[in-house]
């Protein structure tokens, strides 16, 4: 999935406006318990809840499909791999393709895994699609007391990422201009990739160093307690978001246990 650098959802939606740390925390509280079981029911319930609350975050389903297609690709890959290589082939035989016996057991295991990938990844996508990186860094520093040197430093580094793309293209073209190309030879290609990547790394480090000096010149390392130009507030609504997501996750797990399908990941 493409890591959204700019929010693509409606920023005025009721849940999109919540504190970034609350959103991130809610995503974690909701998804981590889902990993505790191997059955397909829990992630199905989880996904249903996630899709239902999506409009509250201002994310439109069409935008979501556009962003989540690499995830769908990964899901399909897992499905194929599991069907081909599953060790546990119990259950009713549905189809025999030479050495590959496709049974209900294989299918439910594979489906469970694919659904889990979706159920865990989706909240992350929603959080980053509805959160401005600056707000996230502010909230990390102000609400969970993350070190500013780390949070603001990472934010400044993220700003330099798009430059790397342009730099990579220039480096690749410059190598061709120097008479260095790999043709169809895979080993030469790998070596060329390595040397270009190294040059990119050197350039990125230099740039990062210059940025760090410029930030310190503006007092980033002054040791004076920082003030905040933008206030990130953690309100009762944010706390409620955390509690509700934990409750929803617990409800999904409880349903699975009551249905007798709970298959703990450990033991």
């Amino acid at each position, binding site marked *: 999935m493409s890591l959204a650098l700019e929010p693509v959802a409606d920023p005025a939606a009721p849940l999109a406006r919540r504190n970034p740390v609350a959103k991130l925390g809610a995503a974690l509280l909701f998804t981590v318990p889902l990993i505790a079981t191997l059955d397909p029911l829990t992630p199905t319930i989880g996904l249903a809840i996630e899709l239902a609350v999506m409009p509250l975050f201002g994310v439109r389903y069409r935008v979501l499909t556009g962003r989540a297609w690499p995830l769908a690709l990964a899901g399909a890959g897992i499905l194929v791999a599991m069907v081909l290589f599953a060790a546990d082939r119990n259950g009713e035989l549905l189809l025999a393709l030479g050495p590959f016996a496709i049974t209900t057991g294989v299918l439910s295991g594979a489906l469970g895994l694919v659904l889990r990938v979706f159920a865990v990844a989706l909240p992350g996508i929603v959080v980053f699609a509805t959160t401005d990186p600056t707000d996230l860094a502010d909230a990390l520093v102000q609400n969970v007391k993350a070190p500013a040197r780390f949070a603001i430093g990472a934010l400044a580094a993220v700003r330099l990422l798009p430059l790397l793309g342009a730099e990579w293209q220039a480096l690749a073209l410059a190598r061709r201009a120097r008479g260095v190309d790999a043709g169809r030879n895979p080993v030469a290609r790998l070596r060329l990739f390595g040397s270009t990547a190294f040059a990119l790394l050197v350039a990125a480090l230099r740039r990062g160093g210059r940025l760090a000096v410029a930030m310190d010149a*503006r007092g980033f390392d002054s040791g004076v307690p920082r003030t905040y130009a933008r206030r990130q507030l953690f309100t009762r609504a944010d706390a409620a978001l955390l509690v509700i997501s934990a409750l929803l996750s617990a409800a999904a797990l409880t349903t699975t246990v009551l249905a007798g399908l709970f298959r703990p990941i450990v033991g």
Partner: protein
Amino acid sequence: MSEVVLRGFGWRHAGRRAWAVRGVDLRIGHGERVLLLGPSGAGKSTVLAALAGLLPEDSGEAEGEIEIDGLDPRKARENVGILFQDPQTQLVMARSGDDVAFGCENRGVPPSDIWPAVAAVLDRVGFRYGLDRPTAALSGGEQQRLALAGALVTRPRLLLLDEPTANLDPAGGALVRDAIARADDADATEILVEHRDLPSVDRVVVLEPGGGVRADGPPAAVFAEHGDRLAAEGVWVPGRPLPQRRAIGPAGDLLVRAEAVAVRHRLAPISLAACAGEVLAVTGPNGAGKSTLALTLGGLLAPTSGRMRAFGDDRPPHRWRAAELTQRIGSVFQNPEHQFVTSRVADELALGPRTLGRDPRPVVDELLERLHLGHLAAANPYTLSGGEARRLSVATALATAPRLLVLDEPTFGQDRRTWIELVDLLAGLRAAGHGVVAVTHDEAFVTSLADRVADLPATACCASASAQRVAG
């Protein structure tokens, strides 16, 4: 206002044998505006970094004294603002207003005072956009103007400007000079290093490369006495004529022809030809697609429409194998470091001939000699100065003896001496029957050397450009 005093000041970076700067005695009074001059390597930027308190004690060895209002610069940091060359590595935040506020936050300014201060300083430098304007959407000149606001927002009593326009095209440079002039504060002391378009100042201080101060006084007096020597050392002393190198003979055979060549979103359809024995300058505003055109002519980028024909080959240049390409067309990028692929200068030069199965030694020796790189044969290309790196990047393109040379902003950021060497070198190549295409913003370069100019129009999407002959 700040008073700056240097007494026998020197600094040597850790791990270096030579002193970056040494034996500098200088007193700069409250509210003065001083230009630091000197050939490259004289230590101008080191003096500014020291004054900005950006040389930590463990990063090198200091000598003598340096004081701002009687304080060690490392302790006077909140009274000092500095603006560097590259806007990209000075902006921290995604939104313009947030970026200016960054310095206030770091200094612990109360939140209620931050936004009024940000608005006031943006107005002072003439920033034309709102606080929410993404910093990435600004032109280089606007970004640098914003960075100036970021340096000024905490009302420094000493402002240091380290070549603030060197990374910008002429329009961007003019924007930043305008911002600096607008923001001029009679209460602040200003020390600046500038490259080509020297600003008007009260006082010029010339640093001697070996150490000490060579000259100190009003600009007119300093340039009258030391101008010739400074110009010979590569300083862009104002009002000095540049050599004119017009073609002696007519242009030769056609080397490359572009027929309605376009690159989607980057270059509008253009038709032009480059010939042997001729220098073609490609000019035009930012975003017109000049660099894209250079890449296309250089056989590095495939046009999305139109036709490229070169060297009588049926295939367009971008389909040639790299080794074949380097024998016919040499490309020199704006950033020389992009093109370095080995760890020694001599190896850089040997790479091209060796790939073609030729004996590299005679070529390497000749180019080292011709481009004054002999003493650097064993040096790492990444450690070269700007002028040396530029000469090496041109030399690597020449090593495979291509008939056409395509250069992107070859004179950008170069000192006067390298500039003249480059113009002479290209004039020599033209006389020897090579074709030269140069993308450039540098009007003096066009006047000195170009036989023809292709001026690309401002918009990259609609109009088509055509080459025209320079009058005279």
